[in-house]
């Protein structure tokens, strides 16, 4: 039996203990890391979604046929029933501007002090890290008539409609 190098054995044990401690610390940190990455992705997703609505709102009959106001003005006032969407004019440019991103679009507006929220585009159930962006459009009887929509507005009436998009990555 040889009892030499016992100090080396103890040293090995303590080194293993310290390394285990370090690895545990790093592993624990990664638990905090995960939501941070998700938050950073949420920021990008929110910016992307908001920009896409802004781009459609600014569109002047180029590659995007109707701008956001015209799309909303042309709505026939019936809600979407999954999987059929009820605002194809808006769905087409959105799917082009948001590749790999799913979204639902609701329209919110007031009618005689009553809030109406109508679903017009449904692509599924939002995931946990979905973001919501909003954009306002103003409708008049003239814009509705030109777009052939179902809004029943008087000649001297304006209707402010909130386009509410819930977007999430798959």
């Amino acid at each position, binding site marked *: 039996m040889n009892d030499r190098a016992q*100090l080396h054995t103890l040293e090995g044990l303590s080194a293993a203990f310290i390394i285990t401690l370090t690895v545990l610390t*790093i592993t624990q940190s990664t638990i905090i890391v995960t939501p*941070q990455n998700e938050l950073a992705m949420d*920021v990008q997703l929110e910016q992307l979604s908001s920009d896409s609505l802004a781009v459609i709102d600014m569109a002047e009959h180029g590659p995007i046929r109707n701008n956001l106001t015209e799309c909303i003005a042309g709505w026939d006032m019936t809600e979407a029933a999954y999987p059929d969407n009820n605002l194809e004019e808006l769905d087409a440019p959105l799917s082009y501007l948001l590749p790999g991103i799913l979204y639902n679009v609701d329209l919110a507006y007031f009618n005689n002090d009553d809030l109406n929220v109508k679903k017009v585009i449904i692509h599924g159930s939002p995931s946990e890290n979905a973001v919501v962006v909003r954009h306002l459009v103003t409708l008049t009887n003239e814009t509705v008539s030109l777009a052939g929509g179902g809004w029943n507005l008087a*000649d001297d009436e304006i209707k402010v409609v909130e386009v509410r998009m819930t977007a999430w990555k798959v």
Partner: protein
Amino acid sequence: MESLKDDTKGQWIALSGLVISLILIGLAALANQAMLAGYHSSNAALEFPKENIRELNLHTKDNARIIRDLSLSINQTSNETVPVIFENLFDSYSDQVKKLHAVHGETVNVSLVSINSTNGTYNHDIDMILVNIRYNDGNTYYASEPEMIEVRE
């Protein structure tokens, strides 16, 4: 155990092992700090209502032009002057915007300060308005008082 006390070899190895472990712990702590900084900056970017404020400003400007055009159109068949029609429509806009933001827990106030016409045809056309825009979501307060909007394009 006697031989352990007497054996003083390999002290450099033991020391370097300790130093490397301490360096690893330090690096892990630094990495953790960087992640925390990332969390706070991302969270701040998400919470700050940049897009909402920008949207409120831009929409008010766009809307003022829409209301001016509509006022001129209504004026053709109405006895009321353009500024009176404009004021009524702007009040309606302000009311709707206030309610739509209130749904999200935000206080918004868009009020008309004055309607101006620089070419002397005040009752028949307007070219500039002043509005006060206020936004408050409990954390962020924004005010633009007054915001000057040219409504004649």
